[in-house]
């Protein structure tokens, strides 16, 4: 596990292992601070955009909220009925409040991984600290929004999520921009600690702008009996997105599921992967990816399963659907078995809609476009993912709207 604490001068110039390289000096850092306010009082245009990324500023069906605009944490609180079950702070406040919080800071992600991690270290703009208390089961999702309001702004957040032993929670993170913003760079470091017998479902929804660049860097550590479900949804076009979150299943019988649903449109360049490291006895992993590519989108769907314990098992499933001759999907599944007894498998399929499927449905009276929509909707069916109920319908709507736009 990485140990780097200080960003070296070399790291700030180091390109990421994957994805197009960016000149990080091309983005603006200056912005006026936003005052703190009740989340319900945020302006309508911000509320609307947040909703498009699954974050409700009216807090209906949500247990608590963190809302950050540019560099300002404008709102962070649990709702009254859920007080004492979890805490939501900015990472800055958490590090001030708890000495022990440092034990969770830059422990899973190496500062010197690349220029983006170094940037998050040197130009840190807070982020959220969510801690679900021991044995607490929170029935409604907690939500966090990372919002960018300035054109060409560079936001670097660092989040820490701790699910204490025996706790259960769902977290929705929506990342989006103001309707007037077209370009910028978002760097997000997220470190997840899912402790003994805790269950955490994390759903990240991205709704960026067409010329936006996104570089999340996430890692999770799972203790004995821990379950971590990480869902990622990106249905809107973005200039470039590169991420390769990793989960270390260190504990015995720990479980990780990575579910990713992508729609690459226009000139989007998406390089998205999930990495599972099975270290504990009886640890299990699953990676499921569904990607559709339209127009000129270029998608790389990666996956890496590493088996380090003889009693461990993981499966990777990646399916890509090409809806344009100019688009491309490159599936790169990798399996690394380090000990005898680990069971790793993958299946990957990339292609266009089969003509015979369309003809079959047309023979049932569906028009050609209805048949295509039905097949694509079926392909992007999110029922197989462990989505929180509060979010399932919203994500279905996003997928439907995205498919309708693609056709």
């Amino acid at each position, binding site marked *: 596990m990485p140990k780097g604490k200080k960003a070296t001068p070399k790291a700030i110039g180091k390109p990421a292992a994957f994805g197009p390289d960016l000149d990080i000096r091309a983005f603006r850092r200056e912005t006026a601070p936003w005052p703190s306010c009740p989340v319900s009082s945020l302006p309508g245009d911000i509320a609307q955009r947040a909703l498009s990324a699954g974050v409700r500023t009216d807090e209906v069906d949500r247990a608590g909220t963190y809302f950050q605009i540019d560099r300002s944490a404008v709102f962070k609180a649990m709702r009254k009925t859920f007080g004492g079950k979890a805490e939501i702070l900015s990472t800055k406040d958490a590090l001030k409040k708890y000495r022990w919080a440092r034990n969770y800071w830059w422990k899973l992600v190496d500062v010197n991984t690349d220029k983006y991690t170094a940037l998050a270290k040197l130009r840190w703009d807070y982020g959220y600290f969510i801690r679900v208390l021991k044995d607490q089961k929170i029935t409604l999702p907690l939500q966090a929004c990372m919002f960018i309001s300035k054109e060409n702004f560079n936001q670097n957040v660092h989040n820490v999520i701790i699910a204490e032993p025996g706790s259960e929670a769902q977290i929705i993170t929506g990342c989006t921009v103001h309707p007037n913003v077209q370009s910028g760079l978002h760097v997000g470091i997220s470190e997840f600690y899912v402790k003994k017998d805790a269950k955490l479902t994390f759903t990240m929804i991205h709704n960026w702008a067409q010329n936006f660049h996104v570089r999340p860097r996430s890692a999770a550590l799972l203790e004995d009996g821990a379950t971590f479900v990480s869902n990622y949804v990106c249905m809107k076009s973005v200039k470039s997105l590169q991420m390769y979150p990793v989960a270390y299943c260190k504990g015995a019988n720990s479980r990780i599921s990575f579910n990713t649903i992508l729609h690459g449109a226009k000139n989007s360049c998406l390089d998205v992967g999930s990495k599972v490291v099975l270290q504990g006895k009886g640890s299990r992993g699953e990676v499921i990816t569904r990607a559709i590519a339209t127009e000129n989108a270029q998608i790389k769907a990666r996956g890496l399963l590493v088996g380090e314990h003889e009693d461990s098992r993981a499966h990777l499933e990646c399916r890509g659907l090409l809806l344009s001759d100019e688009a491309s999907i490159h599936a790169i599944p990798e399996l690394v078995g380090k000990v005898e007894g680990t069971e790793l498998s993958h299946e990957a399929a990339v292609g266009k809609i089969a003509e015979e499927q369309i003809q*079959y449905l047309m023979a049932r009276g569906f028009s*050609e476009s209805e048949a295509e929509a039905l097949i694509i909707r079926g392909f992007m069916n999110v029922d197989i993912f462990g989505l929180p109920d509060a979010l399932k319908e919203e994500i279905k709507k996003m997928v439907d709207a995205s498919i309708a736009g693609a056709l």
Partner: protein
Amino acid sequence: MAVLTVKDLTVKIAGKKVLDGVNLEVPEGKTHVLLGPNGSGKTSLIMSILGFPSCRVLSGRIWFNGTDITAMPTDERARLGIGVAFQNPPPIKGVRLGDVFRHLAKGRADEIKLTRTTNIPMEFLERDLNVGFSGGEIKRSEIFQLLAQRPSFAIFDEPDSGVDVENLEIIGKAISGFLKGRSGLLITHLGHILRYVEADVAHVMFYGTVACSGEPARIFNLIMKRGYKWCEKCPKVKKLRQKR
């Protein structure tokens, strides 16, 4: 009046002539049977009647209830009243049988009654279309969809192949019940389905065309007894072979 009329139809698929001057007429309320050895053009004829884009019509015409449908897209033909139960439908992940059923039924069909008629358990509607279906399940699901669609003209492509005795009875009864008062075209290899379905005329295809037509039981029994090899000795079939 004829529901379906195929006149001098010649069709190429992937550059190969698969139908060569087919003539066929199915009158209203009648069921016709299509027989013929493998590769004689039965499925190609069905694909052409359905208007699959892979079938390039070189000459001839197809009429449905007096409308020339030769150049009509498949979905419009379906909406006019042509339905089909496929022999090997493609699996479609994520699209449930229930999704297609609801589209076909448009709220008019009695779901429970139809599942009973075709012996489809209700939970089956939640399954992905043709994904992991057994042979019998495929046939029953196809007929279930057809019953929901309620076309005035129904095509059954080998509904009895790969089906066990219990399923054969269910399928046979469902088809015969459905065809009462309707018109249809039935392809069968071994003729098991004819125990349940009363057909009016049988046609035998050879070399991409209809070589002979007649009373179903008589033709079928002859073929069962002597095989298609015997048919090949028929002067008419010989002539067709020479023509090729």
